């Protein structure tokens, strides 16, 4: 399996919304390469006819009646917001100017 390069770490960081510093890119590239080398052994079982397990319990969708129940007040829901305005979460611009 391929190793992980500095450029790849930078790409992954962008996908994961992490603005990594230059020194972090170098640092992580080396460490992630080591970790991937150590864990790559899992692929030894890949060819076998083994069903994957994503979860230790069989999961079923749980539905409840669509009834109004007590919930957080708008003030409570907004209480941890970094910025708010007119009882709403205030966020930086989402759409570009062009």
């Amino acid at each position, binding site marked *: 399996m391929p190793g992980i390069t500095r450029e*790849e770490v930078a790409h992954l960081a962008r996908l994961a919304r992490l603005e990594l510093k230059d020194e972090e890119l170098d640092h992580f590239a080396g460490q992630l390469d*080591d970790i991937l080398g150590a864990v790559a052994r*899992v*692929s030894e079982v890949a060819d076998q006819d083994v069903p994957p397990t*994503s979860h*230790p319990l069989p999961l079923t969708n749980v539905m409840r009646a669509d009834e109004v129940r007590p919930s957080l007040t708008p003030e409570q829901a907004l209480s941890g917001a970094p910025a708010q305005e007119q009882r709403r979460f205030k966020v930086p611009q989402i759409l570009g100017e062009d």
Partner: protein
Amino acid sequence: MKDSTDSTDSIIRLTAAGTAARIASGELSAVEVAEAHLARIEAVDEKVHAFLHVDREGALAQARAVDAKRERGEKLGPLAGVPLALKDIFTTKGVPTTVGSKILEGWLPPYDATLTQRLKAADVVILGKTNMDEFAMGSSTENSAYGPTGNPWDLTRIPGGSGGGSSAALASYQAPLAIGTDTGGSIRQPAAVTGTVGVKPTYGAVSRYGMVAFSSSLDQGGPCARTVLDTALLHEVIAGHDPLDSTSIDAPVPPVVEAARNGSVTGMRVGVVKQFRGEGYQAGVIQRFDESVELLKALGAEIVELDCPSFDLALSAYYLIAPSECSSNLARFDAMRYGLRVGDDGTKSAEDVTALSREAGFGDEVKRRIILGTYALSSGYYDAYYGSAQKVRTLITQDFEKAFEQVDVIVSPTTPTTAFPIGERADDPMAMYLADLCTIPTNLAGNAAMSLPCGLAPEDGLPVGLQIIAPAMKDDRLYKVGAAVEAAFVEKWGHPLLEEAPSL
């Protein structure tokens, strides 16, 4: 009525069961008990750093409510008035919850986790929130954004992770009860290296509602204490179905307290797995483990050798599955609705602000796992990494199923080594990950496990943990076996192991 002559020192050394009995009989007031523990925290926590936040007023108010209940003649629950240290991963309404991360510094949750609600409903007195590896990622509590916790046996060593704060609080007598969470061993591993007891219940036994998610298919909250019985009493308070958690098991809680009161291994078949020893295990750890197996034999258990070949791949599978789920779960920390926001100067987009905030708010280990998880889940690598890891998970579950056809429980060392010095493995993630070698298979399969003290390693005088593993939903077996082993060890040593810890 209360005419207590108990000193602070004797109160803090009581078991949880003993404390509850004295409060129920009126020999001690809940306020006296809370004050004794708050005084202990005041005296020693500067050295240990088990707590991130001490809720003095909240604890005293809860204690006063317990005393008022008693004075009114109301029946008290089995742990009413007993103090507890709560891992800072569970939300506490109006009380800081940081998950050991800068990204949630100063956050006051608007709601209680189900576990927090259950503790309050049982009149357990919550002293405060304990230190932990950031987002529960780590094996040493060195990854906390607020600085490491020391091991009360030797303050220059790690108290285990990620629940090092909870275990250190127990081992330094700052609380008789604590709560941990176990994704790859974060309850059992700290218990082992601090000479305390910790239980990872069956996956789904304790609600995850209000427990900040790291790896949802592995995370499990559970009880920590200084004795097996105390752990069982706490288990019964926190376990049980929760309609707010879709992964919560809708079945009765196994009779764990009854099992802890009737410890026995007579006629039980106990498995020893050959994959749980080998390279990387400290000689003193193996020595104490072998003695424990001899003890089980002497107590009437039959020992069965087991071969679980897939366990050799467990660590690899875990370090693909846990980061994958973490990269998805931690996407919620986007600097929009709660948490830290950095770089919002009016010129940057929401996407840029998210990236800058996450860079500033997350520590190294969290970033490393987010990147690793993003890679393992990415197109082209998914089958080779995440997909294969899930196949290994199936094989490990099958190994356990075959094993439990032959035995009632499995035993192993909890950790391959005793507590290592703070900083020793900080720059070597793979060396750090080895600390969870024996605990991880259980998280992948979802079954139940306990760690309890089995002696001190001769070479360094530090505690060694014995791990007991039971099938899913058979958590009571852990307590039955654990209580028998604990009683035999205490008789052999003449006192609980923790009494050999240096005074702080």
